[in-house]
C-alpha cells in the first residue's frame, strides 16, 4: 500500500505575511516517523548521490523509524555540520529529493511523492540542538599546536572551521561584519531560518574551541602574508560572492531602487523592519517590484510584502522574471510560499527603464514582453523581446535580485592569488588549494553563486586537504 506524503505544518499565509516568524513549523515526532516510514530503504540509495556532501540519508531515515534520533543526528553530522540549517534552506527538490526513487524520471525537480528528506533532517537537527548533542573532537591532539585562519563566517567558513576544530586544530574565523553567519544572517530572512537556530549552530562551534573575530576585514586590516606571519599554518578563504549585479538600464540609480543585498541586509542583519526600535531605516513602497527568479528574489519579495502589511499598506509586490516559472532557479517551496503570501508574478518580462520624478525617486518601470527562444549557454531557453510589446508598471520601489559577483577586497591586494575572468578564486578541484601554498578556498568565491550545502561540500573537501597539508608539513 502506497502511503501519502506527510504535509509539513506551516503558518497560515494570512498570519505569516504580517510577521517575521518562521513559516514552516516542521514535523512533530509522529509526522517525522510517518514520513520516514515511507522510505523504502533502497539498496542503492540515489538520494545520497544527490546530496552535495553525501549524507547517508538511508541510514539516518532508518534510525528515525527506530526512534534512534541521537543516532540519526550523529549520522547526519558525519557529513553535515549544520543539519538544522540545511534542513531549512537546502534546495532539496533539486538535490536529494530529486534523486529519490519516488521522483518521476522526467521531472525537472522532485515530485510530490519524493520523501521529505529535508524535513526529516530538520527534525533530527532540531532534536540534536534541543538535547545539546555535541560531536566530540577526535583529533587526538595531533595538531594541537597548529592554528588555521578561516576568512569569512558564512556557510563555507563555518563548515571548514567545524571540520578542523573537531580534529583538535585551533581555528580563528575572521568576519568583516559585526555578526557571524555571512549570507545565512544577512541574506536569509528569519522566517526561513530563525536566528536562534543559526546562533545555536555557531555557539556549538565556539564550544568546540573555534575563536571568531568579527569586525575584521582581511585584505584591509590584515593581509594573507600577515596571517602567515602571525603563526597561522594554513588559511581557508570563504569570502562569498559579495558584489551585487545591476541590470545596467537607465534610471537604475534612482532613489528607492535597492540591490537585493542592501534590501536583505537592512532587514535581516540590521532589523530595519523594527525601525525606529532599530535605527536602520528602510523605505516601503506602495508598488514594489522585485527583479529576478532565484531564492534571493523570493526572499526579497516576501520581505517586501511583509513590510507593506506591517505598515498598513495594501500589499502590492510583484516579481518580474524574463523566463517562465519552470526556469526559475528558486526553490519550488519558496515560489509557492511567495504566491500564497500574495506576491504577484509577471513572467516573460524584461525591464527596460526606470522612470523617476523630479526628486529622483522611482515612479515607473518600462518593460517589454519576452518569448523563449533556443537554449543559451546556461542550457535554459533564451528570452527574446517581442517587438512593440513595451508596457509600464507602477513602481515606487524596486529590488534588483539578479546575482552577485566576486568581491575584490582581498584578491585585489593579493596578486599571487590567481583569479578567473569573473574574479573568482581558482583552486585545484581535488584539494581546493589556491595558487598560494597553504591557502585554500571554497564557497561562492570559488564556484560563483551556489547553495549553502554546495559551499559546505567545498569547505569539507578543503578541510580534509588542510589536515593533509598539516600532516605533511609536520614531518
Amino acid at each position, binding site marked *: 500500500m502506497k502511503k501519502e506524503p506527510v504535509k509539513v505544518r506551516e503558518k497560515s499565509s494570512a498570519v505569516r505575511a504580517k510577521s517575521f516568524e518562521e513559516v514552516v513549523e516542521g514535523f512533530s515526532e509522529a509526522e517525522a516517523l510517518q514520513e520516514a516510514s515511507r522510505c523504502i530503504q533502497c539498496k542503492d540509495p540515489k538520494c545520497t548521490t544527490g546530496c552535495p556532501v553525501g549524507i547517508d540519508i538511508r541510514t539516518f531515515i532508518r534510525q528515525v523509524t527506530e526512534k534512534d534520533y541521537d543516532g540519526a543526528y550523529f549520522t547526519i553530522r558525519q557529513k553535515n555540520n549544520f543539519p538544522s540549517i540545511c534542513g531549512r534552506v537546502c534546495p532539496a527538490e533539486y538535490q536529494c529529493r530529486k534523486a529519490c526513487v519516488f521522483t518521476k524520471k522526467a521531472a525537472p525537480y522532485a515530485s510530490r511523492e519524493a520523501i521529505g528528506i529535508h524535513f526529516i533532517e530538520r527534525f533530527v537537527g532540531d532534536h540534536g540542538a534541543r538535547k545539546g548533542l555535541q560531536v566530540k573532537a577526535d583529533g587526538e591532539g595531533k595538531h594541537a599546536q597548529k592554528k588555521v585562519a578561516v576568512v569569512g563566517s558564512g556557510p563555507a567558513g563555518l563548515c571548514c572551521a567545524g571540520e578542523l576544530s573537531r580534529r583538535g586544530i585551533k581555528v580563528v574565523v575572521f568576519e568583516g561584519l*559585526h555578526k557571524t553567519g555571512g549570507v545565512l544572517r544577512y541574506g536569509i530572512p528569519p522566517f526561513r531560518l530563525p536566528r536562534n537556530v543559526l546562533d545555536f549552530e555557531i555557539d556549538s562551534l565556539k564550544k568546540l574551541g573555534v575563536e571568531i573575530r568579527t569586525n575584521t576585514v582581511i585584505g*584591509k586590516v590584515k593581509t594573507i602574508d600577515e596571517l602567515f606571519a602571525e603563526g597561522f599554518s594554513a588559511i581557508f578563504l570563504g569570502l562569498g560572492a559579495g*558584489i551585487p549585479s545591476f541590470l545596467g538600464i537607465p534610471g537604475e*540609480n534612482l532613489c528607492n531602487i535597492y540591490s537585493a543585498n542592501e534590501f536583505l541586509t537592512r532587514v535581516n542583519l540590521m532589523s530595519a523592519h523594527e525601525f525606529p526600535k532599530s*535605527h536602520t531605516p528602510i523605505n516601503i513602497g506602495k508598488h514594489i517590484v522585485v527583479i529576478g527568479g532565484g531564492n534571493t528574489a523570493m526572499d526579497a519579495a516576501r520581505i517586501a510584502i511583509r513590510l507593506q502589511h506591517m505598515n498598513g499598506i495594501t500589499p502590492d509586490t510583484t516579481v518580474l522574471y524574463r523566463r517562465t516559472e519552470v526556469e526559475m532557479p528558486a526553490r519550488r517551496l519558496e515560489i509557492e510560499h511567495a504566491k500564497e503570501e500574495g506576491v504577484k508574478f509577471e513572467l516573460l518580462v524584461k525591464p527596460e527603464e526606470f522612470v523617476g520624478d523630479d526628486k*529622483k525617486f522611482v515612479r515607473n518601470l518600462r518593460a517589454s514582453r519576452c518569448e523563449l527562444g533556443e537554449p543559451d549557454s546556461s542550457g535554459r531557453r533564451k528570452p527574446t523581446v517581442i517587438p512593440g510589446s513595451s508596457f509600464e508598471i507602477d513602481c515606487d520601489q524596486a529590488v534588483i535580485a539578479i546575482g552577485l559577483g566576486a568581491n*575584490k577586497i582581498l584578491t585585489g591586494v593579493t596578486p599571487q592569488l590567481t583569479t578567473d575572468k569573473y574574479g573568482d578564486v581558482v583552486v585545484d578541484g581535488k584539494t581546493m588549494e589556491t595558487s598560494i601554498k597553504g591557502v585554500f578556498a571554497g564557497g561562492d568565491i570559488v564556484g560563483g553563486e551556489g547553495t549553502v550545502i554546495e559551499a559546505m561540500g567545498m569547505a569539507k573537501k578543503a578541510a580534509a586537504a588542510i589536515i593533509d597539508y598539516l600532516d605533511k608539513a609536520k614531518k
Partner: protein
Amino acid sequence: MKILEKEVLVDSQGVRIVKITIRSPDIAAKAKAGQFVVLMVKEEGERIPLTVVKADAAKGTIVLIAQEAGLTTKLLGKAVPGDSLYSLVGPLGHPTEIKKYGKVILVGGGVGIAEILPVARAMKNAGNHVTVIIGSRAKELLILERDLKESSDEFIVMTDDGSYGRKGFVTEALKELLEKSKYDLVYAVGPIPMMRAVSMVTKASGVLTLVSLNAVMVDGTGMCGCCRVTVGKEVKFSCVDGPEFDASQVDWQELLSRNNIYSEKEKHICRLHGAG
C-alpha cells in the same frame, strides 16, 4: 573600541562637532590618509562611515570627528570616555594617492575640514607645496585651524558671514588662486553643494580635482551597493571604488538625492529619541 577621549570642538548656532579618540590598535596600524571606518554606537544602531582623521600606530589609537546630524552621530556625541562602541571596522576604502604632485590646494568645508587634515599632512610630507582653504558659516564653527595651518604653506580662511578670515565662500578664494597661478591638484571635502561648486570652478582650469564622497553606506565593503554613484557614466561603489573620485565626472544631482533618501525617517527617529 573603547573611547579614550572626547572633546566638543564646536557647539554653536545649532552645530555640534565632536572629536573622539578610540583605542583600536589594528586600525591605527593600518589606516592611511583618505580611509574611513564604519561604526555602530549601539547594537540596535545603524552602521555609519566616518573618515579616520588621525591614526597613531604607536599609541594604538584613531581619531574621528563627527558633526551631530542624524541619530547615530548624536549618540556618538553623547558617548563619554570609558564607553565602548558596539562595532568598529576598518580601515576601509582606498587611501589617497600621496605623491609629489607639485602645488596642491586642499579645500575643506564644515566638518569636511577634518577630513582634509590627514591628506594635508601626508601631502606636505611628500614634498608638495600645500595651500589650504577652509570655510564655514561663521568663526565659531571652524575646526582644526591650528593643525591645518601647521600643515600648509599657504592658509586661507573664509566665513560666510565675514566673522573671521575673509567673507565669502571657499570657491571664491579657490577661483582667485587658480587664476593667479598653476596648480597640480585640488582636493575637496565638504557638503555636497560645496564639492559640486568646487568642481565647477576647477573644471574651467582643467586641474585634476579629487573629492571624498560621503554616500550612504551599510556594510562599507562593497556588499550592499547602497553607496553607488555615477562617475563618468560608470556606476561605482563609494566604499570599495572610492571614497575619492574625479570631481569633474561625478553625477552630483544623483548623489544629492540618494543621500536624502531617508531624511524624513531620520528626523522622525531623532525626535523620538529626544535628540533633535
